[in-house]
């Protein structure tokens, strides 16, 4: 009888070598110009090293050379899928430094826009996540509906992607004629569509097999890495700045903070993160209904816009809930018309840094899935 030791003695051990694989910067599943340096043993990935910075556009350096109001178009271009949220949070940070209160109507319009933006951004995240696991049709369904949100934005401010709509102290335009009616029509149309995504993608057996139990992110790890937004909530942490640190007028609305519950595997897997986004769209619809009902008819949206923006000396850290998580701005002012230093704490930056932690040990196909479930936007990671 031959023992294993004899076999090893006579024939040696089968040696396997690790292979270094470059995923990106040109790769369809890296959602932009992200480069992942992957060490693989066959199909199994042993470590992932993200290389970022391919889209670095010196946002923070730009800010030091621009006046406060000129920074707003640049925040658009950071997270280009959630420009309204970026505008909103940056404007609020500067307003807080200046001590400006904006009118009721402006607050309502800002919330409506931000929530519409959240729906648009989550639709893209859900659709491209479908693409990452190989289902192409859900993506086109999501784009069909995202188009209607973009149409609403276009009707409001003329732009479809980079809006520059929310200004410090107000808005660039008032709402156009019949906007309330069109928005109402959209949410009536959109709400049943969420079920359609669930039917085609969420509860598909193959989809569950691909995403359930894959890339499990435990809550402590998520908190330690500073993950936020749906990535953190997917791990079961009930944390949403709209509820926990209510800014703007979010404390007036009744909505639920969605968390993952490990329905299709372990708590904090890709499916949970994905499903949090799907359900959050429903919550955004809820907020929109209430906001549209409470939207004041009369009011000037530009009455509080300051002539000169010169915040007093000092600094502020202000954060809010963008579709991807906690978006923060750390602004230092030296009392001049240009900010002394602007730091943008982008949620996807921290969310991406966790990829080696949860991705190592899975297969190449799963890396694509995990990356998709983190929903990164490179424009905001590289700034």
């Amino acid at each position: 009888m031959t023992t294993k030791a004899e076999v090893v003695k006579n024939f040696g051990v089968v040696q396997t070598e690790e292979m270094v694989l470059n995923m990106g910067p040109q790769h369809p599943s890296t959602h932009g110009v992200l480069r992942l340096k992957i060490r693989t043993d066959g199909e199994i990935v042993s470590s992932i090293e993200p290389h970022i910075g391919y889209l670095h556009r010196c946002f923070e350096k730009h800010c030091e050379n621009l006046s406060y109001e000129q920074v707003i178009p640049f925040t658009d271009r950071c997270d280009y899928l959630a420009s309204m949220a970026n505008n909103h949070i940056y404007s609020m940070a500067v307003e807080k430094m200046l001590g400006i209160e904006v009118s009721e109507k402006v607050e309502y319009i800002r919330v409506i826009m931000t929530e519409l933006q959240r729906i648009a951004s989550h639709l893209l995240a859900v659709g491209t996540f479908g693409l990452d696991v190989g289902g192409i049709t859900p993506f086109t369904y999501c784009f069909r509906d995202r188009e209607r949100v973009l149409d609403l934005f276009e009707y409001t401010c003329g732009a479809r992607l980079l809006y520059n709509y929310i200004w410090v102290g107000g808005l660039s335009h008032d709402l156009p004629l019949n906007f309330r009616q069109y928005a109402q029509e959209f949410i009536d149309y959109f709400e049943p569509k969420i079920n359609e995504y669930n039917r085609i993608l969420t509860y598909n057996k193959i989809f569950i097999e691909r995403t359930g139990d894959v890339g499990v992110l435990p809550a402590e790890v998520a908190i330690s890495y500073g993950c936020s937004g749906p990535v953190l909530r997917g791990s079961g942490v009930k944390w949403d700045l709209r509820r926990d640190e209510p800014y703007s007028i979010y404390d007036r609305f009744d909505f639920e903070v969605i968390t993952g519950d490990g329905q299709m595997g372990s708590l904090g897997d890709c499916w949970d993160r994905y499903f949090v986004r799907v359900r959050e769209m429903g919550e955004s619809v809820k907020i929109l209904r209430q906001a549209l009902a409470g939207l004041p008819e009369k009011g000037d949206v530009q009455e509080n816009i300051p002539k000169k923006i010169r915040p007093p000396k000092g600094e502020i850290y202000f954060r809010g809930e963008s579709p991807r998580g906690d978006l923060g701005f750390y602004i230092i002012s030296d009392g001049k018309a240009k900010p002394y230093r602007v730091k943008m704490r982008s949620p996807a930056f921290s969310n991406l840094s966790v990829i080696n932690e949860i991705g190592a040990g899975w297969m190449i196909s799963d890396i694509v899935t995990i990356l998709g479930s983190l929903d990164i936007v490179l424009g905001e990671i590289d700034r």
Partner: protein
Amino acid sequence: MELAAIQTRVGAVHPDALVPTDEGAAYLSMTPEHWADVAQLLRSDEELRFNVLMCLTGYDRGPGEPLGVAYNLHSMDKLHKLEVRIEVPRDGGKIPSVAQIWRTAEWHEREAYDLFGITFVGHPDLRRILLPEDWEGYPLRKDYKEPDYYRGIPVPKDKRGWE
């Protein structure tokens, strides 16, 4: 917990760590020497429990002045916030890394190193993150001069229509 209470709490354990701040400042100022221990205390103390590092910002006080790092901490359990500032000399300034305490800091410290040239001692992998590996200088410093050439390609200096 209020700022003053936190200050007392930290001062009780590490009296040398605190640097006096201006009247009405909304942050704590610290020396780099004790920062690693203080950070550990902030993270694990029962009263403080700052488990989230919201933001880590490098800043430059101006040419000839020190460089600084601002840490914005938050506690999800206790729901309080804290800003800690550490300033180090411009050349050869070193700050202990907190990447092992809050993993968020790993990439944020790399970013501060990349753009300001602040060295974080004990960081597991301190490399440039946003800029290319061979970039010279630290662009967000106030005395940064943009290079004339980058890899043999002249950098455009004519800024008409840009500003």
